[in-house]
């Protein structure tokens, strides 16, 4: 795994999927935030962060993800995570991210859930 986190974005109607690859630290978190805000500004209603290729996240990365979550909630949008390692899953639950952003085992399940979630309501954690 390289040091720098790479983000690729896929847009499906009003849902933006951000695929992360690498360490979600200060640099990785900032890059996620940049891409997420750009998608929100471009009309995305829901963001899904697919962390399949991320095995490590630090507290700074988490604090940036919390900022992204707050921004999404301010915009009455929806944020969801999918394909987390068990370690990152537990980390997000302890750090409170899972309280307002649902976590799904697969991208398909995340897509279905955010499609069903009305604007302004967090998709329910399964």
């Amino acid at each position, binding site marked *: 795994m390289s*040091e720098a986190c790479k983000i690729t974005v896929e847009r499906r109607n009003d849902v933006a999927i951000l695929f992360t690859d690498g360490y979600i630290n200060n640099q990785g978190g900032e890059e996620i935030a940049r891409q997420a805000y750009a998608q929100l500004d471009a009309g995305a209603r829901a963001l899904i962060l697919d962390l399949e290729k991320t095995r490590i996240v*630090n507290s*700074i990365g988490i604090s940036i993800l*919390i900022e992204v979550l707050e921004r999404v909630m301010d915009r009455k949008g929806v944020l969801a995570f999918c394909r987390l390692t068990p*370690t990152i899953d537990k980390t997000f639950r*302890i750090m409170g991210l899972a309280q307002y952003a649902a976590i799904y085992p697969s991208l398909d399940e995340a897509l279905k859930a955010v499609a069903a979630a009305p604007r302004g309501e967090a998709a329910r954690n399964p």
Partner: protein
Amino acid sequence: MTRTPTAPPPGRAELWKLLSESLRSGPEHPLPRRLVDAAVAWSGAREAVLYLRERDVWLPAITTAETGGLVLPEPPPQRPLPSGTALWIPLEAEGEVHGHLGLEGVGSEDQEDLASVMATILGSLLGAHRLSRLVKEAEFEVKTRLLELESLYDLGLSLGGQLDIAALGDEVLFRSISLTDAGKGTLVLFDEGGKVLFERSLGEELVAADRVASWNLPEGESVINNAAAAAPTAGMRLSACQKCLAVAISVGGRRLGVLAVADKESRDGGVLDFTAADARLLSLFANQAAAAIETARLHRAAIEKERIERELELAAAIQREILPRALPQIAGLELAAANFPTRQVGGDYYDLFPLSRGRLGFLVADVSGKGVPAALLVSTVHAAVHLQIDDARTVVELVARIDRHLRRYAATRKFLTLFFGLLEPDTGTLRYVSAGHNPALLLRASGGLERLDSTGVPVGMLPNPTWREEIRTMEPGDLLAVYTDGLTEAVDEGDLEFGLARLERAVEERRGLPAARLCDEVMGQVADFARGMPQYDDQTLLLVRRT
């Protein structure tokens, strides 16, 4: 929403409404920005600046002016302060100043009322915001500590059940980097012999794996070096980092590896010093990891031992099928043989071939190596001898054919020493080739002893080999002893070898005994000499006496 400075100021209810609307709009901006925007909207100021305290220093956090013309007076005012066309308002709540708002271009008739209202309302909002931020930070800190504890607990659980060294190493490295907020890290683990078993880096490698063994880290405690770019860390110059935290992973004083993390990140992109708390956390991780790595290593060793035992059993089965079950009865000859595989199985092989005209062919071979590869080569030699013995016209030709057969069919690049003899019982003529084999012992009935030295190179060792056939005559009563080096190189508890001289004496002293008993007693004497010490090579002895 901006009013002209000449318009009359609104009442407090209107101000509150105005503020509420301003604060609700643009929620993507942080509250201090929205406060400033609301203050400008309500007061009609040309520009505004809000100073907030960061680490006991007042800094301009929000400003509407590009030029930065409004500068907080020194010392900061404790009450509203008109300063030329500017007005400075300390934003206070609960007896504490949370910010200083500077407004440029407000009418002097408005200033007193403006200052009073803003100090109260904006001060309260800013105080609440600051308090909320402090609570959030404290919550985050508490959750981070909880995460550390949970991680240590999880690490213990997951490592205890994790027997794959690579997965275990990743778990240790990633959690260490994550929980110390490091930007990079390196983990190197060694096996018992000090060979690198696992190496993994996130980001640039902090230290090359082949240098880690000489890293003089103390046992059981982490070393902090917040000047790692300039000075060595526990004697090791590290590359590609500014600050470093490193710990040795050890069990019972035995070094299992080294874990190092570097360059603790800060939210503003800088590099923070590692703290004593970071060091304590990394030490705890190293302790957990040491126990888990040792468990995984022992588990792996147990699996390896089981695999070797299975392999040896298989090889032993192959060998049992190859060695003759019974010795042939040849008129005019008395035969005896013994084979003790020392580690269940080895590379010794002997065989006897009754041939036409009452002749006897016999062979003792010693294959290099052990285990299944050696047993398979023995199997190949066995096949080669049995296939070629009827077609070969001379002993040399037979050995050459075996050599060619091995080169063509043997799966492994191994070689063997062998002694092949062809004896005519009627005349006592012995033709033999010794391909790099230990000297066979020819004990004359008359009392002498002759060593039959090697007459060529081991089979399968060199390209284009040649061998020389030697001929001796065995008189009635003469005894030929052919053996493998497992006998002469058998060791006692002091690592002393049995040796050729002792073997010669053992055979000579018993030359009058029947061959079978002589064979038993010589093998017994070697076993007595070794006193139960584990031996590293098979022991084979073949005796041929002309009667």
